């Protein structure tokens, strides 16, 4: 039971990270019907920028652990959001009217480009987060000893998801995003500046993805420049699992996939851990391509 609960909470932490990345995929897909292949690499940028800021600014020494990490998260989110907006400008805006394949290829090119820029800057080796900055405390939860970082990650990711959900559902800008996702043309007729909505989506998604990257760095203590595509693929699986284009779906899908993967790795086979997510992906696409929470949309002819 102890083992099971440890794996379950671990799965929830990883799932929270997947969910945060998946939100970026699902929002972009919702508005542009484009798989943003470079999103996973923006996530990696979050992890690397977090590492650089953590070591160079020594925030946790100056202002204490809690405030230091909070400032760090906000800085990483802001920087990665700017990167996301630049990516949209450079790689996707010129192709808005082009066929799908062109946009997909451009997205892949952007992914390769971003990944290799990171490799040329930091080198190909694994980068290690300093372990003396972060407290390795454990939390006693009714007799279950959980690493503090794990609990924090679950709480932080859930808080961000709730904030995003409220923003999308309750505010006027959120309504504009939903409207642009349903019908761009009609949204434009109602006076919504669709270009600004797209820009906003490319700020929000990468900000969440960057925060997820920082979380991975803090949780596992090491990052490498190719991790973006594995996490990206899994997060995309999560987005499809929940129903692509559907924001609560991405959250549910992410948490579910994290738990499935953690339990599968613990009880089935650790060597096949990465294959589990892909099997889930293929199964869901065969059985229910609209995802768990997605609604069926008739193909336009």
């Amino acid at each position, binding site marked *: 039971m102890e083992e099971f609960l440890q794996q379950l909470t671990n799965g929830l932490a990883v799932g929270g990270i997947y969910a945060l990345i998946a939100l970026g995929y699902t929002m972009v897909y919702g508005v542009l019907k484009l798989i943003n292949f470079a999103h996973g690499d923006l996530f990696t940028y979050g992890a690397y920028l977090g590492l650089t800021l953590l070591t160079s600014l020594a925030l946790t020494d100056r202002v204490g652990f809690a405030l230091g990490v909070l400032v760090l998260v906000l800085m990483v989110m802001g920087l990665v959001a700017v990167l996301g907006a630049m990516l949209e400008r450079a790689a996707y805006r010129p192709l808005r009217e082009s066929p799908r394949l062109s946009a997909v*290829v451009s997205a892949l090119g952007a992914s*390769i480009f971003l990944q290799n820029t990171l490799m040329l800057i930091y080198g190909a080796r694994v980068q290690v987060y300093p372990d003396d900055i972060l407290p390795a405390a454990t939390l006693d939860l009714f007799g279950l000893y959980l690493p503090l970082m794990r609990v924090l990650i679950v709480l932080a990711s859930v808080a961000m998801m709730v904030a995003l959900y409220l923003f999308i559902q309750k505010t006027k800008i959120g309504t504009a995003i939903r409207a642009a996702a349903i019908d761009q043309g009609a949204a434009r007729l109602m006076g919504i500046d669709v270009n600004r909505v797209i820009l906003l989506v490319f700020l929000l998604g990468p900000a969440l993805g960057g925060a997820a990257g920082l979380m991975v760095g803090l949780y596992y203590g090491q990052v490498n420049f190719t991790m973006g595509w594995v996490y990206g693929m899994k997060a995309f699986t999560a987005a499809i699992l929940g129903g692509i284009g559907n924001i609560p779906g991405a959250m549910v899908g992410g948490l579910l996939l994290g738990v499935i993967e953690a339990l599968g790795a613990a009880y089935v086979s650790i060597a096949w851990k990465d294959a589990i997510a892909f099997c889930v992906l293929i199964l869901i696409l065969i059985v229910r391509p609209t995802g768990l929470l997605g609604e069926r949309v008739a193909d336009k002819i």
Partner: protein
Amino acid sequence: MNRFKPFVVALIAGLLPFAPLFLNTYQVDVLNSIGLYALLALSLNLILGEAGLFNMGHAAFYAMGAYAAAILNTRYQIPILWTLPLSGLVAGLFALAVARPVVHLRGDYLLIVTIGVGEIVRIALVNDVFGITGGANGIFGISRPRLFGWVIRRPEEFFYLIWGFVALTIFLFLRLKQSRFGRAINYLREDEVAAEGSGINTDYYKLAAFGLGAAWAGMAGTLFAAKMTIISPESFSFWESVVLFMIVILGGAGSIPGVLLAAALVVGLPELFREFAGARMLVFGLVMMVMMVIRPQGLLPARGRRFSLAASLGKTGR
């Protein structure tokens, strides 16, 4: 430009067989790599370029062929070139089994599924599935190919084997393009609904294109196994699929000369600029982004079919 094209093609085709006489071993080896990639890209072109099915797991079929050949050769001592049809069959059947449930999916969903299949195959190979793939170390000791009692060993000899196969492939694929099959898959690439409305069995043709392309990749895998004598899962990573995808798109989807040119550029240019090897993928990524803006149809785009009015009038006697 178009007036000179036949001459350029004839010149290259005429000079290529004599290339090993003038080039050193290393350069011939680069040409062999180009040949292998050209084969793989031509097989992917059938799926991605001609039929318009986004397949980014082509390395999986390539791996299937290479491993089938290696296992048959090292375990059952079957001469490596004899395994060609069998490894093609293994890769083709595997592709059919995989594609059957997902082939109706829309473009980018299919792309994601094929990436997933490619990864599952790679992970299976690393985990030594059924105890026959040798795990992360792969399989070694694959015997040299023999052709009419002649053991093919040096790069100069492989050159003729590989490029001979490339020539055969080009000839067959050109014929295929002209056939009813070629026209059908082009039609369903352009407009699937209209194709179905005209009585083309879209699922059948999609699967056929998938199976045939994969089978050809499997045979290229056999040649790869024969050339390297060692194969391991690293050779069939996701990036291999991406590079092949890129070759087809950059060359011009559906264009055989374009794919050949792109294979030569993508494989050959990094060899010329070895000192910038680290920046190779960076440049590829940038090129992909820029090409999609300035020349999305590729370097040598496929030309539409042309039928001479006079010839068809003459045929019917009017």
